[in-house]
């Protein structure tokens, strides 16, 4: 089953993934439709850790602790895509799922899918409908810099093994020089900010 992978060195922190996710999950499917709409649901966020930044969202774990913790029958796994899906109609926002998720991937608010006028849990659904239509998840499709990819885990490992050999033998696959410089300067800027000279 395919999963979303993050190559954090390539993340430019442009947050295109966040915008694409918000649009995908908004009834209007448009950027202007979601402006100022507090019910907008964004299932991915670009997190900054010192000078690095990368998108984080649900990892669709196996086994999924959130699913085991849900006492209302709201969380299930799609057997076709492997996506861990949250049904807002059943969710009582009791936070049992969030209490055990180490990735802080589950949030609460009244989204457009909430039916009872109160908050519900929401999280990434791997763009399950898109994936079933052989489309990429919206965040992956939106990523300009190649930081996000959607692929089989085994395939990724095989590719990396081949790549590593090629890098080893041919010195390929380096980031462009200026981009390396940019990353390096960012690292220094942050090191300086936290008091290291």
């Amino acid at each position, binding site marked *: 089953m395919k999963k979303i992978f993050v190559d954090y060195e390539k993340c430019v*922190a442009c947050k295109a993934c966040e915008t694409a996710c918000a649009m995908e999950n908004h009834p209007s499917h448009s950027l202007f439709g979601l402006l100022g709409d507090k019910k907008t649901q964004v299932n991915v966020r*670009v997190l900054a850790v010192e000078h690095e930044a990368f998108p984080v969202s649900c990892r669709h774990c196996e086994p999924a602790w959130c699913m085991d913790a849900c006492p209302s029958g709201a969380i299930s796994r799609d057997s076709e895509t492997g996506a861990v899906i949250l049904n807002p109609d059943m969710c009582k926002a009791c936070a049992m799922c969030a209490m055990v998720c180490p990735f802080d991937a589950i949030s609460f608010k009244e989204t457009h899918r909430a039916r009872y006028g109160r908050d519900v849990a929401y999280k990434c659904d791997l763009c399950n409908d898109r994936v079933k239509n052989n489309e990429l998840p919206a965040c992956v499709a939106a990523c300009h810099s190649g930081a996000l990819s959607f692929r089989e885990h085994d395939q990724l490992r095989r590719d990396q093994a081949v790549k590593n050999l090629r890098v080893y033998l041919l010195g390929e696959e380096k980031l462009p*020089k200026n981009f390396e410089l940019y990353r390096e300067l960012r690292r220094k800027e942050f090191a*300086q*900010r936290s*008091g290291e000279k």
Partner: protein
Amino acid sequence: MSELSRQRSADPAAVEMLNLAEKEQLETIWDRLEKQQPQCGYGQLGTCCRLCTMGPCRIDPMGEEPTHGVCGASADTIVARNLARMIAVGSSSHSDHGRSAALLLKAVASGENTDYRITDVEKLQAVATRLEVTTENRSYPEIASDIADIALSCFGKQDDTPMPFTEKYLLPKRYQLFKDIEEQLFKTTGKKMGILPRGIDREIVDILHRTHFGTDADPLSLMVQGIRSSIADGWGGSLIATELQDILYGTPTVNTAKANLGVLDAEWVNIIVHGHEPSLSEKVVEMALSEEMQQAARKLGAKGINIVGLCCTGNEMLMRQGVDMAGNVLHSELAIMTGAVEAMVVDVQCIYPSLANLSNCFHTKFITTSEQATIPEALHIQFEDEHADEIARRIVNTAIAAYPERDQGKVYIPNITSSAIAGFSVEEILKTLGGSVAPLIDVIAKGTIKGVVGIVGCNNVKVKQDLYHQELTKKLIERDILVIGTGCWAIGAAKAGLMNLDAQSLAGEGLKAVCQQLGIPPVLNMGSCVDCSRMLVLAGALAAHLDVDICDLPLVGSAPEWMTEKAVAIGTYFVSSGIPTHLWPAPPILGSPEVTKILTEDIKGLLGGYFFIEEGPQAAAQRMEEIILEKRAALGI
């Protein structure tokens, strides 16, 4: 909690206030930086193009698709256009400041404005001489009127000849070099590219035009126009601002004042003037110090009115009036948090919009005055030159009226100040040297002083406040390199005690001896950031005396905590004037290998100056010394 504050500022007064902010949960600019993380890399690389609505477009920094914007613009084109626009904005802000000074001088000369007067007739005559304005048998207003006309023509003239201020002030060798480069560029590329500015407004509008959709896509010609615009600023708009303000308010002379938040006084009505243009603050200071106003303040139980400066308006007041300095731009929020400020009066540039809402947490009146800089939630008192006295009186009265509203329980003023000597205009430096640059050239030639580094301000919240300013300055004077500078750097250096005579002990033996002999600190405050023009004039004077070009002199420029577009313009006119210039943080150009190469390498062969990036004070000082030694070797000294 103090650990975080200590990471944010090297200034102990700021650390105290940041601790307070954390305790009282007052949001600061540092907190907002955290909330902005992560910041978009396309913007930082300069490869985000928002110039038309087919975009916005971004170029993949990994060299993969997309490699071009919708219109076909490459990363090089996009970065060059964005940078040119930054220079245009920077040039326009300082130059517009110059325009106000010129318009005011004209109004004073014609008698339309009687609230201001010509204060420095010596300077008036010096400028007239430089501009070849006849002075013989003419009244001061007549001379001033001609000077103002020439200045105004620099903004608005439409012919293709170089504008008069640049022509008259620029070192002839450099003037010739610019002409030669224009010819050379035409010869080698077949394209007409100009360096000598025709008019300030024109060069800025030219950039706006050529960066319009589907116009100039060539990184080289975009950069050349950027250079032209920056020269229109450094040898034009900024220079006009400095020179004409000296005429109107007096050329700075050496004086001593205190710097840092401790200048606020819990028993007085405290007024802070903040921003850049002195026309308003000169009047506010004058009014606040009047017996009438002092008495009004005493009537309400205060000991009187304590007026202090902040940021570059503060520098203008410090340089000319010896007004105490509350701090540089990163102190602006912290000053309000002392709870002891009745009014913060601002004009233009570098005013955080956050100050309005922050002031509303206290009794502080946050007063905007410029039609070009109004801020929601602020109290706006419209300033007009022609009614300056009356408006200044209203402003001071507003501050006094706020005093009874002060909650003394909220007052916390760090008891920290440093004494600082300021007022080093070019004229004052020459006076110190006995009337000529010769003694300075002499000690440089002997190697007692190895060279001069000019540093310009800003605080950038991404850099620990003042740390780079302080460390770089100390490391340079240790190496017998004289440090001069302006803006928020100057305030940082003043707060750190680097601008008093005690700082001589931090200098190397040679520099220390020279400073002791002249009775000056090893670090000289030349004014506000618009006064970077003073550094250019000084450099020109040194070069002229030696009959060399500026790029031959052992001079280096630096902007170690820069953040504004003004700084991009300043950096570019330093480089264009032949001065290698250091920057930290890196400007948003790394997305273009071509532009990066032009600005850090190719430009050296053309103009003698170039940009370099160093993230640490130690490495930067080292590199600066190497550049200076290289120049000295070339001069054979």
